[in-house]
């Protein structure tokens, strides 16, 4: 069994403050993963507000928005045999309704 991090990217700040329906949809998606026993870690949300970017030369800027338009909203970790399976799990996420995207990355355990 391998582990994959699903990284959620949102296009719009407003989507970081979801409606009750959106919360319910996200929760159902997580519940579905958990019911399949494929959730390795329920992960966390990442604040869009309390955010800084640190660059060379002690340059600190507000937010992650200087270079990328999309921002990372959070992540979960799933456990599946293959990356294809992890992709299938990601496809069912409601994030695509609002133009977001999900990056699927295998976890390489540091030795």
């Amino acid at each position, binding site marked *: 069994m391998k582990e994959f991090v699903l990284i959620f990217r949102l296009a719009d700040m407003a989507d970081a403050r979801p409606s009750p329906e959106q919360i*319910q949809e996200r*929760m159902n998606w997580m*519940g579905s993963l958990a019911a*399949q*026993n494929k*959730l390795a870690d329920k992960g966390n949300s990442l604040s869009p507000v309390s955010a800084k970017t640190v660059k060379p030369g002690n340059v600190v800027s507000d937010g992650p928005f200087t270079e990328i338009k999309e921002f990372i909203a959070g992540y979960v970790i799933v456990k599946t045999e293959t990356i294809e399976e992890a992709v299938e799990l990601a496809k069912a996420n409601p994030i695509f309704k609002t133009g977001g995207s999900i990056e699927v990355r295998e976890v390489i355990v540091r030795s």
Partner: protein
Amino acid sequence: MSETLLPHLFRREYSKMTAVLCRHFGLQHMETAEDIVSDTFLKAAETWPLKGIPEHPEAWLYTVAKNKAKDWLKRQHLFEARIRPEIGRDTEGMATVPDFEPGAIADSQLAMIFAVCNPVNPPEAQICLALQILCGFSVEEIANAFLTHKETIKKRLQRGRAALRTDEFRIGLLDEATLQARQAAVINTLYLLFNEGYHSKSNDRLIREELCAEAMRLALLLTQNEKTNSPETNALLALCCFQASRIGARNAADGEVVLFDEQDRQLWDQELIDKGNYFLVNACSGNTLSRYHLEAGIAYWHTTPAGTNKWRYILDLYNQLLLLAYSPAAALNRTFALAQVYGREVALEEALKLDLSRLSDYHALLGYLYTGIDKTKARHHYRQAMGLTVAPAARQVLQKAIDSLD
């Protein structure tokens, strides 16, 4: 003499008296404690029919047990004194006489719960030990409850007892650190004990109700001591109360299980529901959110009338429960809740993603979800469910479902 008095006293007092003596002697002398209590009851059985029942039967039992304990301690003391002149720390407390005051009994029982629910033993052994030592069940009764052979239970108990004896756990101490460390194991054992009664494969309704009642009695003991009166304990007790409120309605007169939707709500025990609410409020006094909280929440919504948004809440609680800890039962129940909120087709799609085809309940769920969508598949899965269970009550329910397909 009333025929029922002695068995009744035995059931109620045996575990109390053993607990007091065990705490006094130490866990390594558990058998001695049990022998003394058994001897005491034997003496009662011999004397009472001849001399009549004493005015205060409990006090009589305590006095006899106390005297027998004193004799044993005296012998033990002599033995210890001759064999080992350097009498150790343990004899200090041993020289005194065990105390059968109500407060001491409660403390001893509490200590005994914590001694028995010891993670060195696997959960099923802990339950057996709890039933025998804390609830005074016979080997035969335990075997009956588990639908297992007496020999299996006997072996399980022997192994479990051996493990208890060699464990370092000091039953005399009820300090915060010890209680904290073992609280989770204790609550889990009581939870399993209750479930064993509530979902038992056994058809013996009396024994099942008794398992539930015993689990609740022990959980109640935990809530009565401020050191063990934790949010989790209250949540567990709330869960038990809500579930137990439906025991009457759940069992038809002929022993058949009555499904939730078909239960006569008039038969639900409102007093237990009220108690459940009381403990649930207590459980929410802190920031703790345990699986018992979530399950109590689900059980709470089941006591509310249909038509509200209750299934949305139930679904959400199952989602959270699964995030906390996966279990096949939670996965199946979540899918059932999904069907109530979003319809059978949505739930069916989710159900087919579950890798649980070894379970009878999984096929029963698929049978239910296919009903109204695909009769042939519904029948097929109900039949598979039948093939995977021997429990008579479950088979009856499945047969009914198959019959109503046509």
